[in-house]
Each structure stands twice: as structure tokens, then as C-alpha cells.
């Protein structure tokens, strides 16, 4: 690589060696088009057009909207596959046969702030404080207008937030919140009976 200081000349110095250095240095100004980049060359200069086609990332629990329905990408909570209206998220039936993946109907209205959420709800076994994988209703996906669950036995975790238009009937866009499979832990309230699920917190984290 040529050092910029080497390009300068002193009065009386032969110009040819400096000229050759200048020629060598000017080669670096050649533009090369990388991936997704087009160069439009003209005699007066070059236009750079970067066509950034992003690769879609099909992460767990990815929410896609289609009018008043949403499809949710495969994801698990504590290795349990959530269900939408009784159907497993991966479309498999209880005998392991592949079927259609369920969609979530976005019924109801947003809250006063024109927001609603697609959430995964976890219902724990009151005795163990854990998810019972045999219970088909233990992990479900719902559309709700508030994040606070109806009872302490139910843990609610947001997958995406929906932004509604002021007419309260059109969903403008979905904002994804969860990008990974989830783990879940129920923490009983300090001092309370471990089997008393009326007090306690549901903690979710990415895995």
C-alpha cells in the first residue's frame, strides 16, 4: 500500500517516479460491486445502487398477519408445543400425523390505546407448580387486549403487539416481541404455601 506522503514531490524532483506512484495509487479508486450492489458507470462518474434483499428469518413464534387472522411460527414453551383452539402449532395431531397448521382468529377489539397482543398462556398444575404436558390446555396461544392475566394460575407472555387503526377494525401492523423458544418457571410468593398458586409469578425467558 502506498503511503500518501510518498505522493508529494519537491521542486526540481524528477516527475516520472512520482507519476508512476500516482498511477499505482489511483488504481485503488476502482469500484467493485459486492453482493446486492449494482454500479451504473457513466463517463462523469458512477452511481452505486445497493439492492438489499434481506433473507427472511423464520424465528420461533414469528407472527404473520393476514387480515383478521394470524399464523404463528413453530415455537415451544418448556418443550411443550402450544395449541390454538386445541390444534398443535406444528399441525401434528395426537397420533403424530401431519395436518394443517392452525391460524389464530383475531376476534374482538383493541384496548383504548389501539393495541392488542398475541400471547402464549401457560396454565400450571397447582400441585407441582409446573406445566403438565398431558394437559392440552396447558400452553395455548390467544389474542387478548390486556397483558395482565385473569388469574395467578395463568402466566401470560406476549409474542407480538398488534397496532390498530383508529377505526378499531383494521390491524395496521404487528410488532414482534418474542424471537426464541421459551422456558417457564412459576415462582410461588415468598412465605406462601408452595401449593397455593394464588400468589406467585410466572417467569419466561429465551432459550
Amino acid at each position, binding site marked *: 500500500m502506498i503511503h500518501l506522503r510518498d505522493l508529494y514531490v519537491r521542486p526540481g524532483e*524528477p*516527475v*516520472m517516479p512520482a*507519476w508512476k506512484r*500516482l*498511477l499505482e495509487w*489511483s488504481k485503488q*479508486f*476502482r*469500484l467493485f460491486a459486492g453482493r446486492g450492489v449494482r454500479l451504473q*458507470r*457513466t*463517463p*462523469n*462518474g*458512477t*452511481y*452505486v*445502487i*445497493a*439492492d*438489499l*434483499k*434481506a433473507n*427472511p*428469518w423464520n424465528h420461533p413464534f414469528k407472527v404473520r398477519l393476514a387480515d383478521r387472522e394470524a399464523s404463528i411460527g413453530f415455537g415451544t414453551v418448556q418443550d411443550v408445543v402450544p395449541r390454538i383452539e386445541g390444534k398443535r402449532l406444528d399441525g401434528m395431531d395426537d397420533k403424530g400425523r401431519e395436518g394443517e397448521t392452525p391460524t389464530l382468529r383475531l376476534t374482538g377489539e383493541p384496548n383504548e*390505546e*389501539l393495541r392488542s*397482543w398475541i*400471547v402464549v398462556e401457560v396454565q400450571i398444575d397447582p400441585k407441582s407448580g409446573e406445566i403438565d404436558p398431558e394437559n392440552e390446555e396447558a400452553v395455548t396461544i390467544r389474542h387478548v387486549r390486556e*397483558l395482565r392475566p385473569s388469574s395467578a394460575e395463568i402466566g401470560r*407472555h*406476549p409474542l407480538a*403487539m398488534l*397496532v390498530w387503526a383508529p377505526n378499531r377494525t383494521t390491524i395496521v401492523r404487528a*410488532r414482534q*416481541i*418474542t*424471537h*426464541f423458544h*421459551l422456558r417457564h418457571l412459576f415462582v410461588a410468593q*415468598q412465605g406462601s404455601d408452595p401449593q397455593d398458586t394464588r400468589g406467585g*409469578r410466572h*417467569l*419466561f*425467558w*429465551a432459550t
Partner: protein
Amino acid sequence: MKTILAATWNALIDRLRREQVLGCTVLGHGGWKHPWQVTPSWSFEREEWVAQIHPGFVNGLDAEVRLRTEEAPLETVVRLGARNGERVDSWLSEGPQMPLRQWRSIGADAAPESVSVSGFETIVESFEPVPEFFLALGAGATEEGGRLLRATEIVLQQDRLTTGTDWTFGAGLDGTFAQFNVTYRLPPGSRERAYLRTTSRYEPPTPPDPMDRLLGRWGDEGFDALHLATVFLLAPEDMPAGSEPGPDWTPHVKHRVFWNLVHAVRFEPPVGRTENLTLFTGLAGGVADGLINQLLADNNDRSAAASEFLANRTVEGRFWSI
């Protein structure tokens, strides 16, 4: 050959002309952006640097930015029915442009971080080091000159209950007692949602002095903070020291958080609740400070009991990603 032919000379000029970049167009296709992704830009309307932040969520709610109504997006103004001159909290999903006004200098024209005196006459100044990335781009260390560099920090904060301590004293039938009180309160103006603020320099909160906590002179800050990103601005060449960042400066962002978050406190006591531990000293009379000193210095058992009592009752929050 001792001369340069005009054709040769012109060929070089032609090549340089062809290769000069006249313009650059980026065709976006809704590429994926991570939560909290910061996009700084110069606002010609407001004549300052601003940052648009891809919505990030804490506990399922997008964080907010406090702005003047004139700076807020229309969606925020309509939602709040705000009037000019008011301060409004704009949600990130409404697309606010957060002003970046608190810059610190790094490198060429930076002020020293600390000054110490060595011996009788030597003054030693220490400066924040210039990140290697910017050294490669021509930003210089303090003594060397070079391109100017500015930085500002974007911090996420979540308000929560504060824990405070104090002592009350009294005389019982069988001696003096001291009551150690732990009080929880919600600071005035606390916000439900997490919010973003900028600061010229981020300093993580220092853990409180255990002795101050026990002496009852302590109350925590009432929020948890997370350092989201640093925005750097690199000046063009030959900008004079002390220059304000303008539209011809180049922004760079160092992100520190890439995912949505959950925030929770260790436990949630009711607001206004006070819990106390009563310690019987057996000492008659006595001045408060003397009693505390007695408790803390001479009576390890009671001091440990108070420490444990406080440790189990201090509200502390944590963020984690989802």
C-alpha cells in the same frame, strides 16, 4: 520517457472521473432490524442529530421517549391530545425521533477524565481512549490531533419501588430499643413503561455503602438502568477543535442490547409498606449515633440481623432477554 504525454495524463483523469461516486441509492426491502436498533440521522427540520429506534419491548410494552409536543410524531399528539409546549411520552412504535444533544468529546479535543498530581510539579491527566475502529478512520488521540470524535449514550430505564431505611429509638421496660425500618415507596412521577434517555457518559450505578444502608441514611434510586447503545459522530477532516456536530459528520452506532426484555423485581411489596426489626440493646439512655455505633461495632449479632433483614427486603430489579 521523460515527459508525460497529454493522452496518458488524460487517461488517468478519465479513470478517476469514471470511478468517482456520484450518488448512492439503497433499495430497502423491509430488512430485519433487531429491537433497540438505533438509526441516527441529521434532522434538517430541527437542525440537530436525532435517533430513530426500532421498537424494543419491556414486559410486552414498547419503551417511550419524552419529547416536546412540537417534536413528537402526530400519532402521539393525537393519542394524548397534547398542546404545544407540553412534554409528551411517545412510544417507540409511534416512531419518535429522539434528540441527541448530550455529546462528549473523545480524542483530539477531549477534556481529561481525571487529573492527578504526581510529585511536586507533575500533573498527570488521563483521557478516555479512542476506540481502535475510529483510530483507523483518522480520529486522533488527544495529543496527536486528527478527526474529532463525539459520543452519546442511550440508556433504558425502568422505574420501580425504592427501598429506604431509618432508625427509631425508644426506651422499654428493660432497656433501650432500636427499631430498624425498611420503607417502600413509589417515587413521584414514576412511569409504568420503560423509557429511554440520553446521557453524555454512562456510569453504572454504584452499589450503596453497606454501612450507610445500616445507618439509615439510605434510599436507592428507584429505577433500574440498562446501557443500550453508544452513538458516535466522526467529524470531517480539518474540523477545528470544539466544533458542534453538523450534517457533514458521520454517525456510527455500537449496540449493546439486541433483544426484547423482561424486567422484574425480586419481590413486590405493597407501596408505602414499612417493615421493621426491633433490637433490644439493654443500654439505658444513650444518644442515637452512639447507640448505632454500639450496635454496629460492638454487637455483631445484631448488626448481622439487621443486614440480613435488609438484604431480604431490598427491592432490586433485573432485565433479561426474551
